[in-house]
C-alpha cells in the first residue's frame, strides 16, 4: 500500500478519516478522500475566510455553493456567472491547459441550466522578452481562442498584465456568463431519492487522474513529468454538450445537473449527494470507458473533459437520453440517488468504495497562520519631474501592459451570438438580451501591483475598478465573482495577504452593494524562487435596463465638453 503522505494527506487528516469511518479505508476510498481533500477541491485553507464575504442581496438567487452564482435581472430571467483558474495546467501545457480551463467554467454555468453567452479572460505572464514566457503567452491565447471560438461563446473582455513574478507561474483565469430563464434553473437541492444518474458526453479515460492534487502543489521540475495530468481539449464535444444540456434543462424531470471537473465522478457524485443530504450508488461497470483495463479507482477519479452528470426523475430517462442522442452524445445511466447518505461505488457487482458523502466534501479545515507584513510606505514616494515627457509618454504607450490588446482579442470571436454591443476595447463589454430591452455589462479587473503594496486596499481597488468600468457603460453593478490567486497558504505572509484581500473584498463589495455570488481560489502559485503578487481578479456583471442608452467610450462630436470626475 502507498503511504499516507503519498496521497498528500497529513497524519491528522488520516486520524480524522479513521474516526469518521470507524475502520481503515481501502485503497480506492483513501484515493477518493485524498483528492477530495486536496486544496483544489476542499478549499480547506480558505473556506472559513471566504465566509466573511457578503453573499446576499435582493437580486441574489444563488450565492456561492452551487456550480455558479445566479442573479435576478427581471422579466423572469437570471444571469449566471463564475470565474475559475487553470493556472497549473497552463504552465505545463499552455494550449490545452487554457483550453480545458475554458471548457470547465463553461460547464459550471451550463450546470445551472443556463446558456453560456460570454467569456472573459484574465491573464498574467512574466516578461515577454523571455522565450518561455512568449511560448506560454502564445499558447494560452491560442488555446482560449481555439476553444471559445469553436463552442460559439464570444470572448468579449478580459485583461492581461505582465510582471516577472508570473514568469514561472502564469495565471489563466476565465469567467463565463450565462443567461437562463429562472424557471429552468437547476439546483442540487431538487435531488430526490431514487432519481437516476446519467453520465453524458465524452468517454472516461485515464487522462488527468490526480489533476486536483496537482493543482494543489507548488510547481517544480516534477510537475513537468506529470504527463498524464495533461488533458486534451475537445471543444466540438463541448459544443454538443451545450446544446443538449440547454435543451435538457428545460425539462422538469431533469432535477439537477453537475459538471465533472476535478476529481471527476467522485467529486460530482459526492457533491450532489452532500448538498441534497442524500447518498448515491453508482455502478462503475456501466461507465463507458475510452481505454481497456481501467480500474475502479481510475474510473472514479478520471478527470476526462467534456462530461456532465444529470440527475433525472426515475422512469423519465428516455426523454433525456433522446435529446443527447440527437446531438450524437452518449447518456448512460450509472446509478441512482439513495437515502443513506453514503457514496457507494460498485464494480462487477462488488462494492469497491462506501464512504459518507459528507466526509468527502467536508475536509477538516486548516487554520491559516497569518503574520502581518510590514506595510509599504507608499504615501511619500517622490516621483521626480522628467524632462523628456514625450519620450516617456511613448514608452508607456508601447509597454505591453498599456498598449492595445487587439493582438489578443482579435484572435477571439467576440461577436458570435450577435449580442455584443460594446466589443473588447471598451471599459466593459456590453451584451444586449434579445427579446427584452435589457443589456448586460461585464468586466474583469485587478491591479496586482496595488495588491502587492497593500492587499487590503488593492482588493478594494479591484472591486471599485470593476464597478467603474460597468458604470461608464450605463450599467448598474449587480454582483461579482472572483478568482483569488496566491502563493502557498501555509506561508504566514501569504496567509496574511489572503486574509487582507478577503477583508478588502468584503468591505468594497459591501459598500458598493455588489455581493459575491461565486468564486474560486488558486493557491500554490509559487516556485522555489518566485511567488505571484496577490492577484484577486474581480469579475463583475451589471444591468442596463434600457439597451438604447448604452454609452461607449469614444469621444462623440467635436465641441463636446470634456469633464474630469472624481477627487
Amino acid at each position, binding site marked *: 500500500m502507498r503511504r499516507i503522505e503519498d496521497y498528500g494527506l497529513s497524519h491528522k487528516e488520516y486520524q480524522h478519516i479513521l474516526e469518521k469511518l470507524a475502520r481503515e479505508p481501502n485503497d480506492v476510498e483513501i484515493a477518493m478522500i485524498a483528492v477530495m481533500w486536496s486544496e483544489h477541491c476542499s478549499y480547506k485553507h480558505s473556506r472559513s475566510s471566504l465566509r466573511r464575504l457578503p453573499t446576499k442581496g435582493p437580486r441574489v438567487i444563488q450565492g456561492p455553493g452551487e456550480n455558479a452564482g445566479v442573479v435576478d435581472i427581471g422579466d423572469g430571467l437570471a444571469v449566471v456567472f463564475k470565474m475559475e483558474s487553470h493556472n497549473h495546467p497552463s504552465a*505545463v*501545457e499552455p494550449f*490545452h491547459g487554457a483550453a480545458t480551463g475554458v471548457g470547465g467554467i463553461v460547464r459550471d454555468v451550463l450546470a445551472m441550466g443556463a446558456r453560456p453567452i460570454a467569456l472573459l479572460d484574465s491573464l498574467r505572464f512574466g516578461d515577454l522578452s523571455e522565450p518561455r514566457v512568449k511560448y506560454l503567452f502564445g499558447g494560452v491565447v491560442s488555446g482560449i481562442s481555439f476553444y471559445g471560438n469553436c463552442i460559439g461563446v464570444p470572448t468579449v473582455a478580459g485583461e492581461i498584465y505582465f510582471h516577472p513574478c508570473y514568469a514561472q507561474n502564469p495565471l489563466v483565469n476565465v469567467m463565463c456568463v450565462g443567461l437562463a430563464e429562472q424557471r429552468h434553473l437547476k439546483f442540487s437541492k431538487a435531488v430526490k431519492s431514487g432519481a437516476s444518474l446519467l453520465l453524458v458526453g465524452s468517454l472516461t*479515460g*485515464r*487522462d488527468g487522474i490526480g489533476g486536483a492534487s496537482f493543482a494543489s502543489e507548488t510547481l517544480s521540475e516534477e510537475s*513537468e513529468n506529470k*504527463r*498524464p495530468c*495533461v*488533458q*486534451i*481539449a*475537445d471543444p*466540438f*464535444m463541448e459544443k454538443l454538450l451545450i446544446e443538449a444540456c440547454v435543451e435538457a434543462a428545460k425539462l422538469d424531470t431533469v432535477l439537477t445537473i453537475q459538471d465533472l471537473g476535478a476529481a471527476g465522478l467522485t467529486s460530482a457524485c459526492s457533491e450532489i449527494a452532500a448538498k441534497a443530504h442524500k447518498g448515491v450508488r453508482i455502478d462503475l461497470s456501466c461507465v463507458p470507458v*475510452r*481505454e481497456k483495463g481501467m480500474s475502479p479507482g481510475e474510473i472514479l477519479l478520471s478527470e*476526462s473533459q467534456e462530461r456532465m452528470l444529470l440527475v433525472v426523475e426515475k422512469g423519465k430517462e428516455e426523454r433525456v437520453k433522446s435529446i443527447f442522442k440527437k446531438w450524437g452524445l452518449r447518456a448512460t445511466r450509472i446509478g441512482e440517488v439513495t437515502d443513506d447518505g453514503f457514496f457507494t461505488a460498485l464494480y462487477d457487482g462488488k462494492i469497491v468504495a462506501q464512504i459518507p458523502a459528507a466526509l468527502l466534501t467536508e475536509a477538516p479545515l486548516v487554520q491559516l497562520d497569518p503574520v502581518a507584513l510590514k506595510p509599504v510606505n507608499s504615501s511619500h514616494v517622490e516621483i521626480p519631474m522628467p524632462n523628456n515627457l514625450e519620450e516617456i509618454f511613448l514608452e508607456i504607450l508601447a509597454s505591453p501592459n498599456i498598449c492595445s490588446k487587439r493582438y489578443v482579442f482579435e484572435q477571439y470571436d467576440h461577436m458570435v451570438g450577435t449580442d455584443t454591443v460594446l466589443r473588447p476595447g471598451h471599459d466593459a463589454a456590453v451584451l444586449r438580451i434579445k427579446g427584452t430591452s435589457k443589456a448586460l455589462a461585464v468586466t474583469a479587473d485587478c491591479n496586482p501591483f496595488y495588491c502587492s503594496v497593500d492587499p487590503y486596499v488593492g482588493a478594494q481597488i479591484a472591486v471599485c475598478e470593476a464597478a467603474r468600468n460597468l458604470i461608464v457603460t450605463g450599467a448598474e453593478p449587480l454582483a461579482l465573482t472572483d478568482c483569488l490567486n496566491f502563493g502557498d497558504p501555509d506561508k504566514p505572509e501569504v496567509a496574511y495577504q489572503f486574509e487582507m484581500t478577503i477583508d478588502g473584498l468584503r468591505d468594497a463589495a459591501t459598500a458598493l452593494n455588489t455581493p459575491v455570488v461565486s468564486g474560486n481560489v488558486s493557491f500554490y502559485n509559487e516556485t522555489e524562487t518566485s511567488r505571484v503578487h496577490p492577484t484577486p481578479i474581480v469579475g463583475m456583471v451589471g444591468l442596463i435596463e434600457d439597451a438604447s442608452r448604452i454609452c461607449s467610450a469614444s469621444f462623440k462630436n467635436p465641441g463636446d465638453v470634456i469633464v474630469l470626475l472624481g477627487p
Partner: protein
Amino acid sequence: MYRVKVQILPKDGVFDPQGHTVKGALEKLGFNGVKEVRLGKLIEILIDVEDESQLMVQTKAMCEKLLANPIIESYQLLDVEEVP
C-alpha cells in the same frame, strides 16, 4: 542534401478527439473495418547536411526543440532520401 519525413502523433494514452471524429465520419461513409484513427502531423524537411549521421542528429534535435511537444506528442523519423 536530404529529404526527411518526420511524423508527429499524439502519444499513446493521449486523447485524440480529431482522430475520433474522423473515425466516426469514415464509419458513416461505410468503411466498417476502421478500428482506430489517429491524426498527427507530417513534416517534410529538405536539409543540407554532410552525411546521414549528421542528418539524424539534426533531425532529432529539431523534433525535440521545436517540432514535437514532448508533453503530448511523440515523433518518429519515417523516411530519408538523398536528393541531389
